């Protein structure tokens, strides 16, 4: 799968991502890498030794992006699982199946990440334009 691209948004209070890719799956995969980067502020230096499955069914693409980011963060907060890569299959607006790979580093390292209060609805976008998929998501930290 072709990898998507992410860039951090200059938001005054919070953190966010601009995402691009040739397909919804590529954008979602980039969202995972972008989110982990946002949370740790750097490459988390984690080997993809373990796998987790994620399945989502939402109203549409923007809702799917929000739920996807929430799932990645939930793995971190509840299980200490730092996801670093994923095989994503987005079979339609709002539907996703993914295998997420990462590891569970010592809890002290996990605690060093930024806490995510929420994946917000503010300026949430995920749509195709001119053959390219683009998305935007802002996190309350």
């Amino acid at each position, binding site marked *: 799968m072709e990898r998507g691209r992410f860039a*951090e*948004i*200059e*938001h*005054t*209070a*919070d*953190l966010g991502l601009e995402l691009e890719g040739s397909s919804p799956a590529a954008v979602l995969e980039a969202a995972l890498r972008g989110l982990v980067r946002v*949370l*740790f*502020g750097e490459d988390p230096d984690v080997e993809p030794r373990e796998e987790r499955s994620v399945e989502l069914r939402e109203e549409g693409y923007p809702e799917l992006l929000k739920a996807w980011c929430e799932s990645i963060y939930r793995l*971190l*907060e*509840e299980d*200490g699982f730092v996801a670093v890569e994923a095989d994503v299959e987005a079979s339609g607006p709002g539907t996703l199946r993914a295998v997420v790979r990462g590891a569970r580093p010592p809890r*002290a390292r*996990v*605690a*060093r*990440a*930024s*806490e995510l*209060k*929420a994946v*917000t*609805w*503010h*300026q*949430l976008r995920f749509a195709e334009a001119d053959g390219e998929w683009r998305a935007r998501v*802002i996190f*309350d*930290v």
Partner: protein
Amino acid sequence: MGADVRIEKIAPYVWEIPKEGPMRVPGRVYASDEMIDDIRADESLVQVKNVACLPGILGASLAMPDIHWGYGFPIGGVAATEADSGAISPGGVGYDINCGVRLARSEVEADSLGTPRLRTLMDALFDAVPSGVGSEGAIERLSTADERKLLRQGARWAIEEGFGSPADLDHTEEGGRMEGADPDAVSDRAKERGLTQVGTLGSGNHFLEVQKVSKIYDESLGSAFGLFEGQVVVMIHSGSRGFGYQICDDFIKRIKSKLPVYGYDLPDVQLAAAPLDSEEGEAYLGAMRCAANYAWCNRQVMLHKTRETFQKVLGSGPADLRMDLVYDVCHNIAKVEDHEIDGERRRVCVHRKGATRAFPPGHEEVPAAYRETGQPVLVPGSMGNYSYVCAGQSAAMKETFGSTCHGAGRRMSRTRAKKESRGRDLLKEMEEQGVIVRATGMRTVAEEMSHAYKDVADVVAVMEEAGISRRVARLVPLGVVKG
């Protein structure tokens, strides 16, 4: 960046965005001439305009001088809606419901502490108050029955469990408990997240600071608040943790799907609002009050842990330390209050999103201890900088629905703050300034450096000049615990 929003100065510290398009009321921003360019630089003024579109909004969409770009509402925003037929917006409260600040005094003089003992104290506080992502374990995991009690009783539950004294409740906004909390309105997921996080700091801009009173501006008010120059005090900034975040998210999702039913057309989904008298509006209020109670309980437990730590490290008993709670304020909340609007007393729902209640002397909802002085207002500054204790003044009731600022207000993005901190030894720099920092992660330390914020001295000065709240004391940090 920054949006082209028409704004006019209408008084020395007040700027107005004229009502236009779908705005139901004008926008009104409190700021000095020097601040307004920074405020124009991001999208916060657009957000002031958007909030002015809320159904049932009264007076004006207000912003305090610490305004900055948030999500939906600006941070530093205040909006009052009609209590009978107006709207309530979960985004107007924020994800961290009842994020707030509490300040405890002591009889300890800063000069008597000494750096080695302060270092030991900060290490011990860092161990006693868990911080960082998913932090938990300050107290035993709650049973579901205990959690329900906590959600209804707030800080009172903590006192009954031995985490503090009843006098603490007399010095907490609302007595540390909001009436009308409805645990049945809270999702199972939120309840699950709440079971382990009582007594934890979290991350981001939350902190626990050991501070010194560096200046008393008003001896009479300072004395009434139990403060004196050179005194060690402790400030705790945190909220309702994952429990509150989940409630906000659950209700925005639920309410967003009902907007066509209510006939609401809003410029930002994040402003999703429900009529206060709708099923969803009432359920949100019940759940939000649970989160408010959770946050008061959370800060109460952290204060208890702090007192224990002081006693252990300094080898003093409670009677010697006298770590009494000065006050506890919330700055992310919606409250049903009575206000006079155009000469008529009306019941309104005041959303304070990064704004603090500032009721003046004589107000019946100010606790008895402060009825004559006005409500203490706690305004934390940026990390390593100073914070303020202020008191509510009468103009707050006439102009801002009894509200004032809540902090310094960011002026630089987290991304830029991090870039500008690259290559610097921030902990060493702080220590050279006499501030000992204990942090779970350096990421938040970099993002929260003082250059990323406005000068809180300017913020509180604007509110004093406008007659909204006045300075009582300035506090400087000695040690900081960060998530």
